[in-house]
């Protein structure tokens, strides 16, 4: 039995797949929790299936969590599972609450019951800041979430801190700003752009419809961010960290670089569509990663341009029929 064993919830998601790869490289035995192994989309971890163990477990079912922990006997638990698409959280606030909010309590309770020495990582989100009270946002910035997703994530953050302070669990909350990759779902704007650019370049589409081009975000590369998650659990003391690039860019800049990368002019192909305007748009979200830099020695390895171009390249490869399109963006 490996000394270091990790259980990842949400292993089939963007972050889960990068984290699983990272932990395997570091010699961990990796367990992934999936809700129904037979029906879940395992595309992102298809290449790992012979190196990781999938365990059935559901954040809605406390008993399944206890039994997943007893089976995996992990030294570290990463809670990445969430209903993470903000617009969906408006249509399904009850499920979002049960899964993304109460699920954290269920998992913390299971950890406390099975083995309180387990180190616990909670995936928190910059969506918790919502109507921001200061720019940039750091670990002390108050939360003012504006969507059911942000509200549920804020709850998960509070409960993680509560368990740390009341039970002495090694439980940390990583407040991650937007992080993207070729494995991002197509419903997210960044991937929608990289996919759209590749399609237009390959003659598979003529235009790309987007919402608010002025929206600004602090976008990093998911592969860099999962490293920060791991680093947080290697510290002597459990603490919360903001993980961000500290830079903001607009959707327009993202599109400009993406189209420019394949020699196209974005203005000729992008149409703005009010249908995609996101309600209750959050204010300027930009993280201050100073604490992660000084305590963890973490810094993003990829620039904004590298991220955008890497995503476009990956979509070009995929849409050109490559059998194993690259999903890892090389750092310069």
């Amino acid at each position, binding site marked *: 039995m490996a000394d270091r064993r990790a259980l990842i919830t949400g292993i089939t998601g963007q972050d889960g797949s990068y984290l699983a790869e990272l932990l395997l490289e570091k010699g961990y035995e990796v367990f992934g929790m999936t809700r129904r192994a037979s029906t879940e989309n395992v595309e992102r971890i298809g290449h790992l299936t012979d190196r990781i163990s999938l365990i059935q477990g559901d954040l809605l079912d*406390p008993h399944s969590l206890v039994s997943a922990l007893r089976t995996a006997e992990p030294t570290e638990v990463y809670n990445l599972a969430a209903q993470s698409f903000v617009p969906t959280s*408006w249509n399904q*606030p*009850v499920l*979002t*609450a*049960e899964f993304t*909010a*109460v699920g954290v*309590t*269920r998992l*913390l*309770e299971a950890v406390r019951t099975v083995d309180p020495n387990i180190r616990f990582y909670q995936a928190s989100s910059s969506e918790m800041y*919502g109507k921001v*009270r200061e720019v940039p946002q750091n670990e002390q910035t*108050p*939360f*003012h*979430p*504006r*969507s*059911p997703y*942000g*509200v*549920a994530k*804020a*709850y998960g953050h*509070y*409960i993680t801190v*509560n368990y740390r*302070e*009341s039970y002495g669990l090694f439980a940390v909350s990583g407040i991650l700003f937007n992080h993207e990759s070729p494995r991002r779902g197509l419903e997210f704007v960044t991937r929608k752009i990289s996919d759209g650019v590749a399609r237009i370049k390959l003659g598979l589409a003529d235009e790309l419809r987007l919402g608010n081009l002025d929206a600004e975000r602090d976008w990093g590369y998911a592969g860099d961010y999962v490293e920060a998650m791991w680093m947080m659990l290697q510290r002597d003391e459990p603490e919360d960290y903001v993980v961000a690039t500290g830079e903001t860019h607009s959707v327009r800049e993202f599109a400009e670089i993406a189209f420019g990368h394949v020699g196209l002019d974005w203005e000729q192909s992008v149409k703005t569509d009010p249908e995609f305007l996101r*309600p*209750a748009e959050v204010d300027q979200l930009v993280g201050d990663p100073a604490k992660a830099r000084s305590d963890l020695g973490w810094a993003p390895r990829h620039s904004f341009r590298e991220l955008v171009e890497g995503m476009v390249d990956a979509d070009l490869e995929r849409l050109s029929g490559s059998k194993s399109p690259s999903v890892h963006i090389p750092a310069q």
Partner: protein
Amino acid sequence: MARRALITGIGGQDGSYLAELLLGQGYEVFGTVLGNPEEYESLAPLRDRLRFAEVELPNAEDVRRALRDIEPDEVYHLASASFVPASWDDPVGTSTAAVGAVSAVLDGVRRERPEARFVNAASAEIFGAPSEVPQRESTPLAPLTPYGAGKAFGHSLTGAFRRRYGIHASSAILFNHESPRRPEQFLTRKVTRGAAAISLGLEDELRLGDLSTRRDWGFAGDYVRALWLMASQEEPSDFVIATGESHSVEEFVAAAFEEVGLDWRQHVRFDESFARGAADSPELVGDPAKARDRLGWQAETGFDELVRMMVVADLELLKDQAASPR
């Protein structure tokens, strides 16, 4: 046609006071309770004037059906596990109840009854260890317990739904509010009942934890009026509902024993098992300025009057019990 109100958690302390207030204002009042309505003593005097909706929170379908059937003009979401220490005994149950229920009710209102006015009962526990004293509507949230985290969730979600859908949704940040209907496991009621029992010779001593904790205590009957005023405002908004005064547990104890002519020092014993951790010690005191200015509300019942009311009620209750031995 009479206005209709739906009150979730109508069987609790606040629910029963709010039901009385609204009935007095000519409302038709509908309520939900956990379990059997017949079992709620606080509702006994009102029972034939209330109607109960079969809603098992947090079942979203139940909520939506009730909203369609009742077509309420006002919805008051009071249902919640309310005893803070117990939220550590059953954090999952407490969270599910709080988080699931408020999501189901807000989602139900915006889908089925968007014209209704919604008032959420939040709590000063959302401030946890507050970064400023007194606490106001803009004080950052930092809950320290599963109960507080659940209440923070409801408070934030109410604001999110108001902004997103333009519904008339408001959240009341209620500081401690007490009454003779407080269950006996709550500190204030434990003290007033203990003082009454000792004065009647039924008990010798009262065991308590830390006496230095400071809280802002008001009368529940005043606080439900604030909820109603919030629903009656033209514009929805969040309000701190508090007296603005804080008192220590020791002051509460002294006032209760003085009411029955006893010196508390001779009857109160310190019991470590009741001492809550440092997490529970910060001073919670609200700034009710916004409620005063915008709602014209203020706490009418002062601290001494509240303590007196509770002691008198406990004296009567214990005398009745003594007079009719089972």
